[in-house]
């Protein structure tokens, strides 16, 4: 694991952490990591143990499962309930609660719902089951949209007639803008998402620095990537700069992946508006299938309830997703809402802020260190 260990060196971490503490200089710096993958890394590796008290990391909306509104889950289940349908999706989706339960519940009640690792696997299911209608529930930001797009192109080329996509792809920049426009927003800077940026590049975030005066550093996913990105954010703050920087240059080209963007564009178009969990309805914030791919569009092929389902009243996922509160500040965290009985989406995916905190961070750091001496 040479190429992983390099990015997990405790010695370099200690050095970076000392430099971060010097730059932070006892001040308060509130930094949002947009991406759920970063949230996961932060808790999984205990990165907060390397940060001074004044650095407050708040978790953003970049967890694809977390931003799925309950109504869309109900729509997906309504498709799965149709005769002769095999519903496929990523494993993360299985436990997400809709208004009428989750995929897992629907599966136990008799629906044929299968976990796949890639939309191309869903295509394989379609080929192997010509007498069934196979639907792939596509979720994710621009990161996963190209693979859905490539799958659509493949399905069209093969003339597969029993395959469809229920498209829920969302776009990262409108979500970031919605957070910046929220009243009372007091963020000092952003860790920019890494995987999304491999597709869209770093350039699209320039509005964050230009229009809102906030620094943003596109970051990789290894612990040292995150520490270095925090260091670079603080450096900008200290020097009074607000720019978009790319820490993740080993993977993210500034202008993005033009081939990936092109396949998205060939198959999908921005929707006028899309409902996000926690952020409400945001214009131009999601992708639907192009007219030319209507034959593969589950939204056109099936009758969907299409209802807007209110989140449970006690659920504060909206405030968690916009960084207004920490997971533990939610009234039902860890009691009524746990990973086994999630009320909100943030408690479901391993990239969800509440699930990551519950699973990895739910202990007193001071006591942990004292106990380890035994």
């Amino acid at each position: 694991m040479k190429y992983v260990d390099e990015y997990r060196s405790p010695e370099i971490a200690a050095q970076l952490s000392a430099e971060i503490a010097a730059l932070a200089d006892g001040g308060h710096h509130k930094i949002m990591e947009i991406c759920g993958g970063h949230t996961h890394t932060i808790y999984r590796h205990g990165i907060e143990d390397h940060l001074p008290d004044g650095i407050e990391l708040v978790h953003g909306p970049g967890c694809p499962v977390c931003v799925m509104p309950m109504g869309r889950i109900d729509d997906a289940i309504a498709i799965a309930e149709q005769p002769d349908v095999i519903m496929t999706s990523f494993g993360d989706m299985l436990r997400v609660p809709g208004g009428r339960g989750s995929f897992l519940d629907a599966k136990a009640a008799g629906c044929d719902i299968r976990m796949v690792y890639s939309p191309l696997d869903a295509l394989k299911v379609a080929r192997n089951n010509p007498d069934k209608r196979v639907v792939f529930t596509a979720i994710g930001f621009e990161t996963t949209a190209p693979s859905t797009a490539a799958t659509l192109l493949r399905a069209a080329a093969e003339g597969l007639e029993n395959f469809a996509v229920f498209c829920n792809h969302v776009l990262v920049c409108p979500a970031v803008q919605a957070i910046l426009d929220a009243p009372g927003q007091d963020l000092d800077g952003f860790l920019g998402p890494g995987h999304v940026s491999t597709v869209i590049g770093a350039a699209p975030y320039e509005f964050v620095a230009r229009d809102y005066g906030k620094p943003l550093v596109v970051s990789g996913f290894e612990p040292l990537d995150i520490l270095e990105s925090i260091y670079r954010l603080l450096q900008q703050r200290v020097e009074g700069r607000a720019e978009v920087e790319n820490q993740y240059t080993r993977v993210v080209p500034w202008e993005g992946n033009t081939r990936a963007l092109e396949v998205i564009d060939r198959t999908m178009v921005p929707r006028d508006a899309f409902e996000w969990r926690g952020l409400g309805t945001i214009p131009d914030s999601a992708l639907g299938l192009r007219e030319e791919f209507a034959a593969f569009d589950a939204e056109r092929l099936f009758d969907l309830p299409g209802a807007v389902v209110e989140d449970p009243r006690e659920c504060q996922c909206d405030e968690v997703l916009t960084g207004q509160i920490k997971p533990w500040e939610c009234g039902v965290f860890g009691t009524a809402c746990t990973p086994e009985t999630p009320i909100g989406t943030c408690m479901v995916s391993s990239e969800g802020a509440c699930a990551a905190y519950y699973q990895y961070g739910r202990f007193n750091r001071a006591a942990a260190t004292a106990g380890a001496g035994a």
Partner: protein
Amino acid sequence: MSAAQPEEGTGQRSAAEREQEVLDRAERARRRAPKVREERITLAHGAGGRSSHALTEAVFLAAFSNPALDALEDQALLAVGGERLAFTTDSFVVSPLFFPGGSIGDLAVNGTVNDLAVSGAEPRFLSAGFIIEEGLAVADLERIVADMRAAAAAAGVTIVTGDTKVVERGKGDGCYINTSGVGVLSRPVELGARFARPGDAVLVSGPIGEHGITILLSRGDLDIESDIESDTAPLHELTAAVLDAADGVRCMRDATRGGVATVLNEIAGAADVGIHLTEGALPLRPDVVGACEVLGIDPLYVACEGRMVVVVDGAQADAALAALQALPAGAQASRIGTVAADPAGMVLLETTFGGNRVVDVLVGDPLPRIC
């Protein structure tokens, strides 16, 4: 905005204090007797995590409760005449039936042998029940049975009784096997998760996660090539060696479904102790780590079928470890952690990166039907 900002001098509790209160409340909720809330059984109920525990306690224990069962060890200890017997049962539904390093036949024998051996018993007799799907190739069944015969010979057990049922095509997945086993506990030991105490050492008998990753890769859903093989093996020689070397062994558990993390959580919960692991000490094959990274799975949760966790008096840790390492199957045994008083009921991991995190019980298994 309700973000946590301590307000100095107002007498208000600090954010850290409020956070701790929430964590205490969450911990109390976590320890409450689990309930089965679902109307139907889902795959999560069979995954070995919290939902499985809920099902076991709320449905099975509620109905069958008795002292031997309530201990919730991998086997029941029974006094019959002057003898102490260990008795256990396990069902095997792995898909595929054959995989690199073994087959459902190997698992069916080794799994039950190991559940007996970790109590300190000498495994002796097995039963074998087959539920076979119409259409299974007889040659495949013969291969499975040959593997069982070889595994039984290696473990020194005899298959003394059995049963066969055939179900219609589509009502089973080739072949399911149930084995029960009886062992004799002649050593004067009483082992159990509840006996772990602060100062004990936590050992693992070999590299972890190989079986689960093998099964995942052999299903062919992922185009990953590797030469990882299942670790399925009998543990009776290792358990005997550890018990010969150290009289301060508190408990041994084979780390099957839910992996090492699940076993350690069971121990931390049963003994009400904190377990502190050192990530750098976990024995892991590099290709297992690589596969786990790619798949986003934590190897601590991946099943083993021939590895065990040993909790032993800290003063005897070196002797127990040396005894494991002296056998080929334990050559890569490692001391992976320490038992402390706090945080009670929790497993913490010090990462190689120098941070700390909780290692919790899994809610759902990413890899169904691995054994």
